[in-house]
């Protein structure tokens, strides 16, 4: 029923005939990183970056929540054209500003995201 595999050979566990394993392995990487999330580094040299990452992540989360709320209200028709324009402009500028700060601290887009374990990604 079960076979004992040497630790290096996973192949006896593969039952599909024509699987391109590399594609699956590549796809599992983000999952594995989600299970073992990178930590906010606390050594003095990179503390600034770790903190900037955390703060920018939270600001980006709030910005996206406001954006969704704005879209919902626009859909519902409860905003005047003028209000839509002002809200859109504010959110657009905020997005630009966050991107600038992100570049300043050398953070990738994907880094402004936190793993919430079984709940998935924050953004």
């Amino acid at each position, binding site marked *: *029923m*079960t076979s*004992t*595999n040497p*630790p290096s050979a996973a192949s006896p*566990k*593969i*039952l*599909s*005939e*024509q*699987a*391109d*394993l590399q*594609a*699956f392995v590549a*796809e599992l990487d*983000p*999952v594995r990183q989600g299970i*073992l999330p990178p930590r906010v580094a606390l050594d003095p040299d990179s503390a600034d970056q770790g903190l900037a990452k955390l703060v920018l992540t939270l600001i980006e989360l709030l910005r996206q929540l406001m*954006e*969704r709320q*704005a*879209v919902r209200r*626009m*859909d519902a028709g409860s905003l005047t*054209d003028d209000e*839509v*324009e*002002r*809200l*859109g*402009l*504010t*959110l*657009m500028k905020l997005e630009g500003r966050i991107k600038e700060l992100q570049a300043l601290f050398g953070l990738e887009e994907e880094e402004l995201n936190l793993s919430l374990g079984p709940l998935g990604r924050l953004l």
Partner: protein
Amino acid sequence: MLYLYAFCRPPLPPDVPGLHKTMLRAIPVGALVAAVSDLDTPPSAGAPHLWAHEHAVETLMQTRPVLPVRFGTMLHDAEHLQAVTAPQEAAMHEALARVDGHVELSVRALAAEPPLPPAEAPPRTGTDYLRQRQAQLSAEQADHQQAQQRAAALHAQLAPLAADSTYEARRTARMVLTGAYLVPADQQDAFQDAVAALQTQHPDLAFLCTGPWPPYHFTRLALTTPTP
């Protein structure tokens, strides 16, 4: 500290190797036993350690039904083990009866790389910006619904062949289906045939079927472990 591998009915077979060259020993849990070995620190999550855990569980599984415990489960001592298992004993008996004679098979379906969305002109006004976001958000929502439906349809073709099953739609953007199936040990071939049939029906997806695994997804144990 105790490192926990699995629960099963006594007696535990002799000389089953565990992690770090330890040997498994049995601690009675009501009418069942917990298969443990003594480790000082939690093992790091690398392939050799994961396989050592897997070998220990599979060795037990060769001769008896087991309730495997997920990799890395540590307990302070025998009292701690009793405390976390005592409320679950009835559930463990029920689960052992359910997984008896079954193995877990895993199925993943991977889609091709999605095409990049067409580049949109940068918005010039606030209204443009919000309209673009509105279109993106509703496209994302439609996409999400479609992914859920697709996973449910694939799963529906495999679930009838399993005594129990669980799945997740789109764990990552391309992973259409991640499913675990509790299959009678003598019907693994029929299950593999069904996966092969799905592959033929869906040439745009790549299917990966692995196993047989211990029934990790079907123990329904809720063990709380100490935080290090």
